[in-house]
């Protein structure tokens, strides 16, 4: 079966990143040092509820947008 430290390539906010396989989106945010309560995650064009971040798993080729509020008029 798969070896322990398999890397998968994903796209976050337009940039490619290689991360360990088998992570949840919550793991990903932790790794990125982001507070889940202050950001919104769009996963392959679907917005994730905050409550589903723990369950959602990251797969190779996934596209994420992680957004938050900034100043705007």
């Amino acid at each position, binding site marked *: 079966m798969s070896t322990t430290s398999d890397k998968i390539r994903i796209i976050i906010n337009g940039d490619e990143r290689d991360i360990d396989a088998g992570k949840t989106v919550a793991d990903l945010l932790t790794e990125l040092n982001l507070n889940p309560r202050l950001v919104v995650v769009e996963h392959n*064009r679907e917005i994730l509820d905050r409550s589903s971040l723990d369950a959602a798993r990251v797969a190779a080729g996934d596209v994420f947008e992680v957004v938050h*509020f*900034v100043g705007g008029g």
Partner: protein
Amino acid sequence: MATTISHGGHGVQQAPRVEDVPLVIAGRTLRSRLILGTGKYSSNDVMVRAFKAADVEVVTVAVRRVNLDRTQEEGILYHLDPERILLLPNTAGCYTADEAVRFARLGRAACSSDWVKLEVIGDQRTLLPDVAGTLEAAKTLVAEGFKVLAYTNDDLITALRLEDAGCAAVMPLASMIGSGLGLVNPYTIREIKRRLTVPVLVDAGVGTASDACITMEQGVDGVLMNTAVAEAEDPVTMARAMKLAIEAGRLAYLAGRMPRREVAVPSSPTSGMPS
């Protein structure tokens, strides 16, 4: 407003007095008719003090990518007290209805509110709205339960259709976003207000306090602005000026101005002059 003042033994003959009713958008009663943007302040500190000076309760925010390379959180939420200020996510920067709908959903997910300031921009140089795209996005968002406050052109027909589409407020422009040119077409704004039932807020173009005052004198329900405060030399003082100007314009509208005349009328009696 001023309460009735008794002054002694005269039989007080009451003058007609107007009474205002508060602005209600999507069922929420607002004490202020001023909405401010959160963009372009020199610092978050200045912004927060400006909001206090203006006593605003609704501010717009934009949805943008988190900068993954910064260690420190830079979102604006950190600086605003959600207990006291309602966040109004915008769809600024969106050039299609689809894009605006996506941004609206992201904004809703990011805060507890289903209010959205809908913008579908048609042109990069002028940031003028695409009224067809705006109408299309408004229909979709209303169907999804959003309370849509729609930025639009000073276009009566489009304003009527946005109302028909279920928008919670219609927000025609005074002039181009960030231009500071003031209320260019008072006739159309007045007509839009006259014809719509939902609140009409004027959004974009106000440059200084008198622009806000003139806009309110047309009878509209409120004003949304960003640059006029953020780019003033002293944003905090300008924020205060805007608060007062909007109240002044509202009261003047309610009070009913004197007629304009191209001839003088004396303020002092013309008879009774010693000879």
